[in-house]
């Protein structure tokens, strides 16, 4: 594929942008991408996680600007007082409780950023002691990890996890 801007050089950069909810795909050569300010010096994209988050939040915006009292943008955290609209504007939550208060709105966002909505790793000291993993929780976590392994083609690890799942399922019967 040739560069969409100059049509002279092969396109080596694919940039997928989400501006105000509108998805645009660009295929450019390095110098045209640089000319558009999409690439930094050395040809690396000027990309940050903040940009990614801002793009996703922009896509959500329509519903948040509504003025009705029950509009999602007017939701407020009971602990810190942050509204979901404040979050959408600044990209930062106000406290740990915000994650519970805005769970429904955050879910699709987390899925877009991380491809997952479920923590499967290190547990905090106290929590790890207080709530030992139930077998059902374990199973769910393993299934998710299995999916992640398959999607990144780590079949060796996937096979291990599959065996572990079978073992747990057998015990559960």
């Amino acid at each position, binding site marked *: 594929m040739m560069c969409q801007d100059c049509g002279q050089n092969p396109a080596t950069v694919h940039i997928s942008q989400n501006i105000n909810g509108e998805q645009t795909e660009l295929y450019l050569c390095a110098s045209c991408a640089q000319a558009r300010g999409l690439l930094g010096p050395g040809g*690396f994209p000027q*990309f940050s996680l903040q940009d990614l988050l801002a793009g996703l939040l922009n896509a959500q915006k329509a519903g948040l600007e509504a003025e009705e009292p029950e509009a999602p943008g007017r939701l407020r955290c009971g602990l810190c007082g*942050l509204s979901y609209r404040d979050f959408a504007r600044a990209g930062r939550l106000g406290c740990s409780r915000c994650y519970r208060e805005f769970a429904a709105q955050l879910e699709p966002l987390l899925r877009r*950023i991380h491809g*997952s*909505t479920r*923590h499967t790793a290190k547990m*905090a000291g*106290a929590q790890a002691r207080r709530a030992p993993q139930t077998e059902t929780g374990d199973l769910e976590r393993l299934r998710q990890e299995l999916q992640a392994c398959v999607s990144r083609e780590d079949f060796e690890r996937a096979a291990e996890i599959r065996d572990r799942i079978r073992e747990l399922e057998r015990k559960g019967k």
Partner: protein
Amino acid sequence: MGSDAPGPASGAGPWETDEAGKWLDGTGPEAGMVVSSRVRLARNLEGHPFPHLLDQAGGEKVLSLAQDVTREINNFGHFGEFKHLRLASLRPLDRRVLVEKHLISPHHAEGGGSRGVILNREGTVSIMVNEEDHFRIQCLSSGLDLAGAYDVAGRIDDLMGERISYAFDPRLGYLTACPTNVGTGLRASVMMHLPALVMTDQAGRVTTAMSKVGVVVRGFFGEGTQASGDYFQISNQITLGRSEASILDDLGAVVREVSRQEAEARESLLRGRRHSLEDRVWRAYGVLGSARILSTDEAMRLLSEVRLGVELGFLPRIPIRVLNRLLVVTRPGYLQRLAGRELAPADRDLRRAELVRRALRSWNGRGGPGRGDPAAGAP
């Protein structure tokens, strides 16, 4: 702690100044193309607003907790000696040096309010207090050594977790101010030197491939900074739904693949453009060895070319440790720290040139001329 180091009194003491940091040693796997590895864990307190919504009393409470944590780490003794500094008690110049040594973010240095940092003496561990999150535990390590950096960060995290009730949710993991960090709170970064990929215009292609596997590329000083002098920070994007080990393994695999591509690009440069490449690195060496005025950007760019020339065997074998250190000690803040006073930009350019000349001269003397030097008199 000792207080006999030179330099202006400011409460900062020698901790921030005597060493540029052990992570610049140029040791560890892949130390040619990989300058350093960094692991950062974002942690917050349960039941307190995140720093950006914290009032002054709340901010002070977190700082006093940081004081306790520092004592605890020192009592534990396993990680060496740590010190807690309040950023407000440091001069702007001292804060700038901490940024140049990659111990705090630019945002933390300039933010104001109740901010702090817990540092170890070697300049390899820093815990930012009241940055975007209440605590950000960061470990730096030389070369490609993510496991080593994570090991230290993880154990300090365990120690802190005994004392602090972390904001943690069994479904979402460690809760952070920004949802891009939630879950493990783990951001692993590797700083790579990739001049040949840049010279052969392949950086775009490589980055596109990286973005597909959830890897983010940034500049020398991290988030929001421009890449310069062919140095790039490569980090994981995803923090939720993956284990720490798989995040580190995957990033390591990407880094090794990028190293391989950089090596290939160097080979192809040597095949196709050997003479112009050799000329270019010797010119860089010549300018650095004789310039009287040197800006930060020019120094960074030429040091990158010299590094490439050393690795390709064209130039005298200056140790990577020396070139790594120059990246930090030629920054504006560090130069002024060395001088013991504030310097106008023009004075900094003079001192920078002098510093680099001296460093290169001493290595030319000991190491002798490089293999590629025609003056060495090949038979």
